[in-house]
């Protein structure tokens, strides 16, 4: 196995004082802590740093390590010296440490609490991302989920695939978590299994935007529809409805359709139709004269505010 140079990992001299080692550890922990830095690389770095600190913070453990370092630090492949007593004295470490650490301080997989035979311990919780379409949130829905759980087979930690159908309650929101009891990793002994957590991610919709429990839909309208008023058909999560646009409507104006938004624990939100006046994509010989006539007859300066200032 590989010899771990804990001093190098923490970037300190072998004769450094504990308080300096602590400072070095805390700086690196801040830099690599998996809860502050996403990504597997940070997690791997943090494990090394935490392991180094676990050994060097304890004067007895550090002394043992220093002895070994004299003996094995220069070898390519580290083997504990013959007759080396595992110095862990049955200590329990809750962390996830390297083979090197386990060989010296004696916490191998079997002895590690989570998997210890005869110890009743709850199984791990498992969390997975669960994409949900907006349409599915309106009422309770059933979704298949597939995930992996860690299980101990013999002394080997393996991953087993699991699949379930889960009822997703109506009104789930983006970023929310829901819990499926007892569907996490199995416990050891008579320990209860862990839970499965589904981290809800609302899939971006091609038409609707989400704002709290309200939905927004941009409704393109022609200039004459804005001017004269119109009935336009707009989509909702459950089919189309007809919406009345008042004469003289403006681009950016919002029309509220009550109860057609997302489901929430305290009733449904609203659908907000945002009007957007759009021009025909091309000019057209038949309509150009009409626009010209409108320009001549309508006494309208949309930039009147600016003219006043200059």
């Amino acid at each position, binding site marked *: 196995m590989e010899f771990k140079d804990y001093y190098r990992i923490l970037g300190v001299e072998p004769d450094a004082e504990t308080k300096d080692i602590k400072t070095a550890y*805390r700086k690196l*922990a*801040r830099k690599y*802590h998996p*809860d*502050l830095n996403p990504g597997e690389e940070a997690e791997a770095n*943090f494990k090394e740093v*935490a392991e180094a600190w676990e050994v060097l913070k304890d004067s007895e453990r550090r002394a043992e390590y220093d002895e070994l370092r004299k003996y094995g630090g220069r070898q390519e492949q580290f083997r504990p010296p013959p007759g080396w007593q595992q110095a862990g004295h049955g200590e329990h470490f809750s962390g996830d440490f390297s083979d090197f650490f386990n060989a010296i301080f004696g916490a191998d997989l079997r002895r590690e609490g989570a998997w210890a035979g005869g110890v009743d311990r*709850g*199984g*791990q*919780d498992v*969390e997975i991302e669960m994409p949900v379409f907006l349409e599915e949130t309106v009422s309770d829905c*059933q979704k298949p989920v597939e995930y992996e759980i860690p299980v101990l087979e013999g002394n080997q930690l393996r991953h087993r695939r699991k699949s*379930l*159908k*889960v*009822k*997703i*309650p109506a009104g*789930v929101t*983006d*970023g*929310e*978590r*829901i*819990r*499926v*009891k007892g*569907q996490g990793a199995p416990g050891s002994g008579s320990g*209860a299994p*862990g*839970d499965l*957590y*589904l981290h809800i991610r609302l899939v*971006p919709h091609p038409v609707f*935007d*989400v*704002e709290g429990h309200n939905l*927004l839909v*941009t409704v393109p309208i022609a200039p004459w529809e804005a001017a004269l008023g119109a009935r336009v058909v707009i989509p909702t999560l459950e089919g189309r409805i007809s919406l009345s646009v008042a004469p003289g409507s403006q681009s950016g104006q919002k029309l509220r359709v009550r109860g057609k938004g997302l489901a929430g624990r305290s009733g449904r939100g609203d659908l907000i139709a945002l009007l*957007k006046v*759009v021009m025909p994509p091309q000019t057209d010989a038949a309509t150009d004269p009409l626009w010209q006539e409108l320009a001549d007859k309508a006494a309208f300066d949309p930039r009147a505010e600016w003219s006043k200032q200059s």
Partner: protein
Amino acid sequence: MTTSTVTITLEEFCSSQGVSRTALLEMVEYDVVQPTGGHGEQDWKFDCSSVQWAKRALRLKRDLELDWVAVAILVDLMRERESLARENEQLRLRLQRFLAGE
């Protein structure tokens, strides 16, 4: 079909892997996680995300050797950052839609 829940009780929370009752009560005291509804502890309910935040808080407290006040501030800021990131993403999508076709 397996049913799911959106909230978790105090008892269930404490039986959750790695969260002791003492630690949970401390986290409630320092506002790291907040129960919703209920007058007494036995009626407390937490939203399920609280479990992940509680575990995260405990890891940060242990690994960075922080006190509860620091953990509470950190978790608060992390939650706020997460919700701002989500809001930012939603606004970005809206902007994209608004600019499309211009």
